[in-house]
């Protein structure tokens, strides 16, 4: 066993518990007490005599000492503040601990019999005086070992068993139950009472605590046995460390239990399939809001707009400039803008709903202590903000890098358009020439005919037709390219949305699971390092 490791595990458990919003007060107290206790240099341990009024704690201490140490009297309750009985040789090194325990009434002994233990006579656990019980509650966490003293009258009191033994015994290591005042019983009865006491301890879930029978007042029968137990296997450092380990184990176990750790395992709060389904549904909801249909239309329009200056000849520049200047491009040919404004296209509620339902479904199966923080994850603001962030990240990254495709085909079409324009120009000049030189006396100009139609007319019609066809071709080609581009954007946006929704959305839920796992690890680690 390594007590440092053990306390480190407790630190981990406290950190995890704090992150989960659990009450870590008790665990923190245990840790601080253990650290303080371990810091005191001493090779004597502190044992407390705890029990009800009149069971003979003081008498027992006097019998152990063989002299009057603690005032025992018929008046109840007797010990008010706690009396310490220590070996004189250890006075120096014990003084700090005694100060920490706030014990002022300290008696010394030569140390011959019990050289390694400081015995504290506690006030009565069942006293009518509250300050006595409070003193007991303050001292019990700080002592290293306890002798629970009972007598034939009180050995089955609920107060002792319920409030003290069942609560404290698991947090202690070195402890014993002393059935005192056995002189009130016939010897055979004493055995029966002892067995009944053992049976009750077993029912309390406290196996393995030794029980001895004493009569401190009448002759000190059994006292030698108690003295032997006190002196046996005394390695004070180990007693102190083991006590700290027991308290630590119990504190971590309590924390682990409150988050639903059973036998070192936790059931996941959310079923895996269900979670996948919810994420998928949320993704669909978001994509409906992003509006992929319009995105496609805008992407195609943007590609056509980009194609126009290069592929539409000299007039293309003009029309695209008009298109831009009137603002129509911004409205209907701006896929990046369309993506960026996704948030304004309706309510996010339907997209968030599957996630809310997922989290809400985890609440009833979660351990009660986790429910509040778990349910808080389903608060609409939290979930919606998170979803919006996730989609923003996905969409903004996509929108930043959105350049319409381009193609040499457009330049070829553009060149052809220029050629067509040149032909048109030439035809225009031809007509103008014919018009201008019509009445010139130098003789008639022969207008060539192509079949029955004059050639300029044929050329004009052909050039117009070619221009129209080229424009159609450009439109089809840009549309086709734009469509492919739109599909690519669509796929990327879909993937990015899914990815970010998956990564970002259930982070708090996952962190709860992870923190629980951390607590489980601490509890397992405790089982190994605190044995």
């Amino acid at each position, binding site marked *: 066993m390594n007590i440092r490791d053990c306390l480190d595990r407790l630190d981990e458990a406290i950190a995890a518990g704090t992150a989960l919003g659990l009450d870590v007060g008790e665990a923190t107290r245990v840790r601080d007490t253990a650290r303080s206790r371990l810091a005191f240099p001493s090779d004597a341990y502190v044992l407390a005599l705890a029990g*009800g*009024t*009149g*069971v003979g704690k003081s008498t027992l201490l006097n019998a152990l000492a063989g002299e009057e140490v603690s005032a025992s*009297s*018929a*008046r*109840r309750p007797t010990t008010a503040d706690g009396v310490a009985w220590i070996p004189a040789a250890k006075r120096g090194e014990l003084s700090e601990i005694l100060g920490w325990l706030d014990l002022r009434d300290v008696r010394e002994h030569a140390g011959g019999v019990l050289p390694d233990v400081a015995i504290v006579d506690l006030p*009565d656990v*069942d*006293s*009518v*005086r509250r300050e006595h*019980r409070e003193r007991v509650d303050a001292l019990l966490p700080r002592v290293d070992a306890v002798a629970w003293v009972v*007598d*034939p*009258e*009180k050995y*089955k*009191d*609920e*107060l002792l*068993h*319920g409030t003290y033994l069942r609560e404290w015994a698991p947090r202690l290591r070195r402890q014993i139950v002393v059935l005192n005042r056995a002189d009130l*019983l*016939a010897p055979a*009865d*004493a055995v*029966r*009472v002892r067995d*009944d006491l053992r049976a009750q301890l077993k029912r309390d879930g406290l196996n393995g605590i030794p029980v001895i029978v004493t009569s401190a007042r009448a002759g000190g029968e059994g006292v030698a046995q108690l003295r032997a137990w006190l002196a046996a296997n005394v390695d004070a450092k180990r007693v102190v460390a083991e006590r700290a380990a027991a308290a630590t184990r119990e504190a971590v176990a309590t924390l682990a239990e409150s988050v639903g750790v059973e036998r070192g395992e936790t059931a996941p709060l959310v079923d895996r399939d269900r979670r996948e389904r919810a994420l998928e549904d949320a993704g669909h909801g978001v994509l*409906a*809001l992003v*509006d992929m*249909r*319009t995105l496609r239309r805008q992407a195609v329009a943007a590609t056509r707009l980009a194609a126009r200056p290069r592929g539409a000849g000299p007039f293309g520049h003009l029309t695209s400039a008009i298109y831009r200047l009137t603002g129509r491009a911004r*409205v209907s040919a701006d896929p990046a803008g369309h993506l960026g404004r996704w948030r*304004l*296209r*309706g*309510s996010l*509620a*339907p997209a*968030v*709903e599957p996630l*809310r*339902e997922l989290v*809400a479904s985890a*609440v*009833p*199966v*979660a351990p*009660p202590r986790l*429910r*509040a923080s778990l*349910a*808080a994850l*389903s*608060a*609409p603001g939290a979930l919606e903000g998170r979803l919006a962030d996730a989609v923003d990240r996905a969409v903004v990254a996509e929108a930043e890098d959105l350049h319409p495709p381009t193609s040499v085909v457009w330049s070829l079409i553009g060149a052809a358009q220029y050629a067509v324009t040149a032909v048109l120009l030439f035809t225009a000049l031809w007509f103008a020439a014919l018009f201008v030189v019509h009445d010139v006396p130098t003789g008639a100009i022969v207008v060539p005919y192509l079949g029955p139609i004059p050639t300029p007319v044929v050329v004009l019609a052909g050039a117009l037709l070619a221009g129209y066809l080229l424009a159609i071709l450009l439109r089809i080609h840009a549309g086709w390219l734009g469509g492919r581009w739109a599909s690519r954007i669509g796929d990327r946006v879909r993937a990015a949305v899914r990815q970010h929704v998956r990564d970002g959305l259930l982070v708090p839920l996952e962190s709860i699971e992870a923190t629980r796992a951390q607590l489980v690890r601490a509890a397992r680690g405790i089982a190994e390092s605190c044995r």
Partner: protein
Amino acid sequence: MGPRAADVDAPVLVLLLGPTGAGKSSLMNAIAGDEVSATGVLRPTTHNAIVYATEADAGTLRGGRLRRIAADRLQAVVAPRSGGVVVIDAPDVDSVERDNRELAEVLLEACDLCVFVTTATRYADLVPHDILRRVRERGVPLVVVLNRVPRDERDRDIVVADATRLLARAGVGGTAPLDLIVVHEGEVDPQRRSIAAASVEPLLRRIALLSETAEERRRLAREALAGAVRGLVPLAHAVADDLDHEAIDAEALRRIAVSAFDAEASELRGELRSGVLLHTEVLSRWHDYVGTDQITRYISSGLGKLRGLIATAVRGTPPAPVAAVEAEMTTTVEALALRHASEAARRVASEWSERDAVAPLVERDPTLWSVSAAFAPALREGLRRWMGSIIDDVRTGGGRKRAVAQVAALGVNVVGVAVMLAVFAHTAGLTGTEFGVAAGTAFVNQKLLEAIFGERAMAELVTRARTRLDELLSSLFAAERARFEALVPASTDLRALAADLRDAVTGLTL
């Protein structure tokens, strides 16, 4: 108290009460003059109450004051002597057996004389002191037997003085001198396993006297009854005060629930009225539909109308995206309502969890953290009926003859959806380019409705639809809130009960 008051001549009931191992059974044996109750070294010795009475008396008691106690918890020992006095040896008040304590408390309510047995080591214990406080509150005559007092004279004086002081501090005895019987250690009668009769002689004499004279019995019974009545007045007031406090707490808890659900409901209403609720993807489909020539002919006049008529003749009326819009409205309203109802439940559960009085109730029913399972189906059904009611309104043309024909021409469902849309998508307060689709759709939708119904009838139709939706959501939210309210008692009931209690004890003296 009722049965006792009804029959002052019923046998008097002497109860032996005390902590485990104090010697109640030994005292019982002393009273009976025989071993009737098992004494022993194992604690607790007495599991059931031992009833020492003549058969007739035992019968009377069982039918009367002790009828609330399970028959197998009462162990009868037949007393040979004449009746009139029943002695009951109660189980321990502070042992690990919880039902023992409960049984002892029930017996305490029924008895006429309480004999509290404690010991020199026990008298400062906490639990018995709490019981003694109950004895005092109950106002029953009390005798204290202090058992196993050390024989040493000095020790004895210390113990007796200290015990008397502590008992007096617990309020036992009150102004009357404490009826204390001291039994020394070792004063036992081994043959009968009892306390030596001589040591408890005053008590035995008193019981004998009770047994012999009916007048004495009546006097004691009256004294016990008077004590009970005296104890009852402050008790009733204390209970009434508790009820009042509980009423205040219940009100506070209800207020939490009411304010959370109200806040969420009003937020929901606000969102439903914001005008930018439905997905523009769906809205634009409706916009496209309403924008076709075939539909705009209803709205426009002159050339547009002619164009629409021709288009209708040539191409017929295009299909309306009725199902898509309906589905969109249902999903959105459902998601929003679920979200807000769930959030309200979460807020209440969260706040209630911090309060000790109701935290266990919330812990026991974890479904309280979210909306109930019945909410979503009820909402869906409600929305279905809401849509049905709008269709019915539209079918009658909003009270306009001319409208009926137009509605029939367009299709009842189409016009119905237009009305529903008008509830959610409207132009009020919409600005900025991005609201273009929503606002544009709302605008043409509104124009269409106006053309069919006229401005006033349309406004009425829409308002009525909106009111019905509000009512539906309010009733669903109220049902959700009722889950919480069912957990706390109605404060008016508590207050009435407190007032009744106070009235009942006013002027009550014997």
